[in-house]
């Protein structure tokens, strides 16, 4: 199709489509099949419709158009009460969302989309559409499940697209649409192809055939025939085209093309042809019914002949949100619409964040200059600069909130995860989310999704017991996993709580020793629980496809640490486990302590500093040259010298004269010796990655109040790098930690 270059709008469309799909999934999961909320159904329908509309406008996303169109048809039936909403239907819709997502992703990456999964989905939707009568439900379920497996494999294999997506027989002619026969005479192959695409946009291809110099198309469209002729006249002459209504009852042509052709006089042949086209889900359909639309007959045959199966087992998981589910969601949607949003590229926001950061730096430079002024002679100037400072800070806060997103952005994915994982394992689990409105930096949320997914999977697999075990332990067979988010001080606390079996301390320690990990029976509970985050640790008796390979949890810990987060585990045998993650609110700005060593200045994240002190001689235990322990309230902490890490010349080597900052990284604490503390500042974190691949022990750089550059120390990396050396300290390292987490 020759259209103006719309490719610059593609990204916007992809963003929008993916957002719509996300919304669709959430609404689907909140649907109650017993009494579906009409407004939610409408919302789902609108999602599909908007995607179809958007995709069709570009004219190059045919697969997307055809798939959404079919989905829309089925949704329309459900919406109008012509088809019951079943759990299976919801599962199929969820699958549809996945397939559409993949399609959008494929288009976005400019790859040919996998036609196979789209094909399978179409077949599945078709099955669903034909199972309008509730009594045929069981049969449909199996067929739908088979189809869903086909989709799974197809999605995994990422096979080449099949050419003839449009030829998949479609039997559902929605209300308000008519079946039209379009006859094209003496049309060149090139024109025919462009018309073919045009017609795909105006309606849905049912089938096509040709005889001699004539081409026949059957399409289902809401447009009047005149409009179709008008559109086609852009390409060919009016005399070459003829459009008639409803020709299915009177077909006439011979079957020369390879695709299915309309021969209603021979319904049996037709039915098997169609059955072949959708052969994956429908095996052995050779029933001949004299229905006007043959493929419908085939579908019904499948539904009738497939043995019944009970679908209830897969449906034990259900989702509960903190607010009652049935609270009218559309209301919030409407409210959103009224308030109005604009789509802004994230780079623009980042630029703004950076620039306001610069201004804050300049402001503090001004403030420093201010101090040298005579306070009486320049009273008003000093006051003005201070006012500007406070205005700037307000602005900075406001701009920072632009990057903030509610945690629901991440939480929204988990109901699906719980539903499916629990179903796979035969467990009954309800998921409760709390504090989904808590806002967090978008970058942080995105990077938290993977770790949280792992943790929740882990809770489902290892935490929650099988229903019979739970019954035996006098618990509700329905297990409960709670994920919550809340602000606490300058940090956000995310918890994953399950009411499962809890962790068995002895079992963990034995397993760790068996795997050759450093563990002893004298460990504190906290230390024992943290063993699950060690690489290569897994207590699962057998490896499932859900978890148990011992990878994952160590990655979780590392990911969280990279974000400046801390992890903590509480567990009680038989009662359940709580995994608590504490994260900074944003990565771009942090509260830092500027320290000096020799002539060099560094910034330490305040969140890691437990306390700072000047050691006395009796607090220090010298081990060998430059190695010492700090005795602090009965606890021995290893001392790491900052000058040693960065080979800084001319520093204070006498520990008694230096300052010691006690740092906490996760559960470990150590002491960092520096020359001086220079004060606390808010600093704008700048990435060094564009310049250096990795600078050891440094997480970034910042500009200080006087305009000079200072490196930001990575407390976790310093610990990591010195761990080998620290092993020599023996017991000093793994000492008990504060009971109260510092936030």
């Amino acid at each position, binding site marked *: 199709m020759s259209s103006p270059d719309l490719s610059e709008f593609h990204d916007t469309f992809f963003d929008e489509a993916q957002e719509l799909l996300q919304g669709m999934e959430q609404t689907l999961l909140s649907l109650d099949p017993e009494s579906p909320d009409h407004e939610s159904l409408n919302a789902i329908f609108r999602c599909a419709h908007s995607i179809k509309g958007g995709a069709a406008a570009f004219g190059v996303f045919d697969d997307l158009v055809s798939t959404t169109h079919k989905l829309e048809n089925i949704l329309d039936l459900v919406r109008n009460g012509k088809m019951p909403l079943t759990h299976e239907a919801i599962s199929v819709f969820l699958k549809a969302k996945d397939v559409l997502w993949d399609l959008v992703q494929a288009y976005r990456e400019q790859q040919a989309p996998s036609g196979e999964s789209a094909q399978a989905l179409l077949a599945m939707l078709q099955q669903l559409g034909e199972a309008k009568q509730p009594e045929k439900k069981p049969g449909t379920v199996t067929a739908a499940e088979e189809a869903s497996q086909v989709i799974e494999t197809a999605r995994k294999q990422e096979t080449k697209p099949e050419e003839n997506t449009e030829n998949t027989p479609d039997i559902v002619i929605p209300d308000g649409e008519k079946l039209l026969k379009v006859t094209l005479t003496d049309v060149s192959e090139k024109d025919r192809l462009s018309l073919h695409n045009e017609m795909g946009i105006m309606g849905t291809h049912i089938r096509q055939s040709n005889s001699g110099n004539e081409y026949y198309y059957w399409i289902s469209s809401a447009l009047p025939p005149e409009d179709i002729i008008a559109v086609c006249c852009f390409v060919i002459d009016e005399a070459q085209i003829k459009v008639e209504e409803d020709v299915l009852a009177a077909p006439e042509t011979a079957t020369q093309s390879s695709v299915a052709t309309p021969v209603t006089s021979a319904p049996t042949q037709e039915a098997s042809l169609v059955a072949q086209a959708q052969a994956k889900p429908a095996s052995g359909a050779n029933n001949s019914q004299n229905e006007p639309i043959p493929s419908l007959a085939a579908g019904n045959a499948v539904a009738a002949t497939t043995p019944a199966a009970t679908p209830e087992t897969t449906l034990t998981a259900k989702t509960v949100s903190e607010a009652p589910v049935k609270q009218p969601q559309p209301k919030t949607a409407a409210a959103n619409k009224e308030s109005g949003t604009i789509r802004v590229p994230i780079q623009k926001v980042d630029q703004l964040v950076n620039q306001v950061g610069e201004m804050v730096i300049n402001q503090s430079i001004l403030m420093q200059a201010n101090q040298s002024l005579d306070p009486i002679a320049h009273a008003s100037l000093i006051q003005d600069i201070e006012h500007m400072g406070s205005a700037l800070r307000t602005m900075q806060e406001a701009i920072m909130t632009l990057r903030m997103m509610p945690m629901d952005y991440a939480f929204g994915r988990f109901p699906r995860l719980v539903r499916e994982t629990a179903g796979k394992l035969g467990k009954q689990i309800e998921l409760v989310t709390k504090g989904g409105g808590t806002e967090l930096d978008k970058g942080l949320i995105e990077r938290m999704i993977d770790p949280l997914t792992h943790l929740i999977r882990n809770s489902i697999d290892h935490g929650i017991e099988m229903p019979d075990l739970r019954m035996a332990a006098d618990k509700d067979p329905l297990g409960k996993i709670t994920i919550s988010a809340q602000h606490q001080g300058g940090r956000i606390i995310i918890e994953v709580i399950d009411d499962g079996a809890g962790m068995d301390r002895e079992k963990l320690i034995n397993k760790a020793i068996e795997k050759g990990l450093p563990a002893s029976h004298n460990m504190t509970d906290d230390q024992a629980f943290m063993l699950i985050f060690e690489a290569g640790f897994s207590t699962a008796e057998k490896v499932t496809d859900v978890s148990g390979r011992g990878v994952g949890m160590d990655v979780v810990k590392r990911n969280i640490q990279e974000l400046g987060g801390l992890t903590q585990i509480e567990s009680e045998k038989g009662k359940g486990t709580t995994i608590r993650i504490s994260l900074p609110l944003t990565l771009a700005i942090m509260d830092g302590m500027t320290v000096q060593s020799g002539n060099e200045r560094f910034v330490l994240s305040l969140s890691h500093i437990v306390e700072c002190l000047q050691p006395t001689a009796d607090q220090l235990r010298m081990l060998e040259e430059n190695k010492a322990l700090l005795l602090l309230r009965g606890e021995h902490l290893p001392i790491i010298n900052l000058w040693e*890490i*960065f*080979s800084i010349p001319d520093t204070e080597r006498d520990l008694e004269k230096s300052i010691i900052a006690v740092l906490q990284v996760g559960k470990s604490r150590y002491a960092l010796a520096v020359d001086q503390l220079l004060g606390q500042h808010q600093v704008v974190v700048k990435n060094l990655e*564009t*310049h*250096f691949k990795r600078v050891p022990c*440094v997480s970034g*750089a910042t*500009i200080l109040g006087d305009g000079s550059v*200072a490196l930001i120390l990575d407390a976790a990396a310093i610990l990591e790098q010195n761990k080998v050396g620290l092993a020599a300290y023996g017991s000093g390292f793994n000492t008990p930690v504060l009971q109260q987490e510092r936030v």
Partner: protein
Amino acid sequence: MSQEKKDALNYHCLVFCVDGQEFAIDILKVQEIREYQPVNVTRVAHMPPYIQGLINLRGQIIPIIDLRIKLRVSEVAYTSQTVVIILGLSDRIVGIVVDSVSNVELIAKNTIEPPPNVNNPAAYLIGLTTYKDQLLQIVDVEKLIDHEHWTLSDISQEA
């Protein structure tokens, strides 16, 4: 002669001097030339010696490379002539320290000879020409300060 034709025939470059040798780089890569004050540079530990450190250039943190150390000049002095050329490369901004900057020159492309076909020509060398009776090395500045060399793995070999 039109401007385009001029551009097609000539190489517009900045000529600078390191250890008595003249080098030329593409003028379009040069963002600005600044006076160099080693005092304002924040040292980054564990980096090869030619990476002097980081400076704050109007709110942007940029690394400074002493090209003289990189080119293995034995004695490096910091005088009032010492300047830092701020390069605006495709994805980042970098400063290079040189002994002095001489001129902006138009060099006729047909006077540029390819690098000598010896065993190990420096990868950054684009060509050679004579300029004011001196040998002028035309260099690809991106290759000269190759990003790949800034990793930890290289430090052991470089230092």
